């Protein structure tokens, strides 16, 4: 089987990429989705607040997904469900598996990676204790409660103040559970301010910063957890232990892009984002394979996923149509002063659009600081920000005409500078 563009993943990134590729003139597209419906993780995010930037209204997750599912269906873009992509080769042959069709391969003219991310597991957190029932990632609990109509437990402790954990603190409370505490290892929350206020403060749920779980009690089922304060090196401080009787521990300790397939294709990953290294066209270092959404870097708002995915879809279409061109000279983007990474990591002046969005995250909370960009040491722009936090994505826009004035441009720098 052959297709012009294969899109791996039918969540918000895959759907937006498909619609954009179609609008750019490529009609032979295949979306590959492992779940039994399109929409991805949005289907279990029943809370509202999605789409404020894109649609100027606050939609719930399923409603936001529904808008993009409609776009795909209006365009008659083909998709397969309950189908798992098992392998991608560097020459863009995808191995798929489904219950109905068994194992088969698809040769793609271009591939858009849109597999999303997954939650950091208990195993990755190194919490001592037995392995009793009652320990869930916040997203797993979210699926049980919101889609399968099951409650994971009644007395709940949450480790990690990521947005999913905060949302689940409210959701479990509304469904009758008692959420005793949210413990966060860092001295600040990784979640949005609005979620801390509306999911914890509204219900009187305490948030303990610089605290972590040091022990889980119970052999068959969780019977309790011990939480302790940590010092600036994140080591538990003896004597600060507090015990909580509970039957459930939810983990909301970060998201990691899901890149097993990217690795099988030989795609270079960024050690900071754990996603593929991409250029201005969101093309990975393997020609014709593009990446977008949470598989590329974990986003804070789905609106930005959709925007980014549209670009990936357009660029994949240009590649198939032979319009994209080959990169002539990749100019690297360096990070300075608290900028953890940038997407893209490099820009080809020939291929870049008139305005190039560069997204990044900062490593700590900054107040009254500036985002400053430089081309070969010369300042291009300086934007004052009242606040920047690790939980929120930031962006700068690079202008092609300005960069072109620098004859032999070697390097672009994005820096945070405090006053």
């Amino acid at each position: 089987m052959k297709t012009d563009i294969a899109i791996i993943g039918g969540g918000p990134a895959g759907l937006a990429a498909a619609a954009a590729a179609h609008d750019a003139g490529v009609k032979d597209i295949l979306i590959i989705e492992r779940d039994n419906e399109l929409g991805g993780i949005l289907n279990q995010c029943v809370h509202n607040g999605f789409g404020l930037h894109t649609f100027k209204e606050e939609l719930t997750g399923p409603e936001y997904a529904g808008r993009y599912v409609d776009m795909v269906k209006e365009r008659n873009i083909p998709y397969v469900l309950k189908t798992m992509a098992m392998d991608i080769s560097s020459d863009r042959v995808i191995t798929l598996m489904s219950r109905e069709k068994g194992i088969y391969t698809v040769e793609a003219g271009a591939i858009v990676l849109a597999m999303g991310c997954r939650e950091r597991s208990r195993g990755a957190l190194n919490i001592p204790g037995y392995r009793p029932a009652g320990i869930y990632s916040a997203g797993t609990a979210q699926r049980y409660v919101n889609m399968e109509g099951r409650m994971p437990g009644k007395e709940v402790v949450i480790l990690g103040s990521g947005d999913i954990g905060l949302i689940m603190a409210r959701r479990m409370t509304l469904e009758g559970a008692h959420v005793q505490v949210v413990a966060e290892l860092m001295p600040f929350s990784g979640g949005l301010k609005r979620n801390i206020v509306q999911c914890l403060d509204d219900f009187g749920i305490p948030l303990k910063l610089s605290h972590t779980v040091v022990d889980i009690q119970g052999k068959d089922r969780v019977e309790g957890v011990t939480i302790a304060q940590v010092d600036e090196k994140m080591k538990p401080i003896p004597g600060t232990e507090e015990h909580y009787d509970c039957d459930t521990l939810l983990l909301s300790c970060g998201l990691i892009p899901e890149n097993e397939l990217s690795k099988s294709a030989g795609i270079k990953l960024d050690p900071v984002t754990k996603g593929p290294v991409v250029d201005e066209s969101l093309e990975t270092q393997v020609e014709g394979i593009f990446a977008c959404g949470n598989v590329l870097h974990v986003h804070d708002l789905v609106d930005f996923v959709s925007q980014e995915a549209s670009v990936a879809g357009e660029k994949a279409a240009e590649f198939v149509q032979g319009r994209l061109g080959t990169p002539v000279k990749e100019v690297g983007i360096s990070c300075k002063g608290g900028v953890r990474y940038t997407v893209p990591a490099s820009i080809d002046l020939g291929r870049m659009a008139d305005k190039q969005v560069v997204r990044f995250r900062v490593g700590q909370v900054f107040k009254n600081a500036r985002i400053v960009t430089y081309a070969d040491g010369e300042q291009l722009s300086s934007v004052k920000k009242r606040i920047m936090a690790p939980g929120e994505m930031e962006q700068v826009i690079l202008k092609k005409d300005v960069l072109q004035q620098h004859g032999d441009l070697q390097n672009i720098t994005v820096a945070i500078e405090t006053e």
Partner: protein
Amino acid sequence: MFKKELTCIGCPMGCGLTVTSDRDIPEGEDTFPVEMRDELTVKGNTCPIGDDYARKELTDPRRIVTSTVRVRGGSLPSVSVKTDHDIPKKLIGSCMSALKDVEVDAPVKMGQILVENVCGTGSNIVATKNINRVQ
């Protein structure tokens, strides 16, 4: 003398707001009467959004409530729902109780009204997802 600390949700800055008033919240109420809106003193905000937020939170706090209700004969056992307008914050619990025993038949269409005028708020409970019928 009334005093309350709030965190503004207008932006990531999260200004700590202090609201004070010569008068207290009337006994048996959770909030000030709406007429008191302009008589409250708000401090700690660094822009007008914080001022407006604090006054609204203490006179007429509202939330959109999202949840799920049970579905008979559907491709999933429940369907996600929301109130079609924001409802008074103090009615969130009553709204959840009202949804506890609601059960609807598949198919369910996104936007379909499942409960009218929930808890007398004037808001309806509407489905936020399509659920197909399966035999």
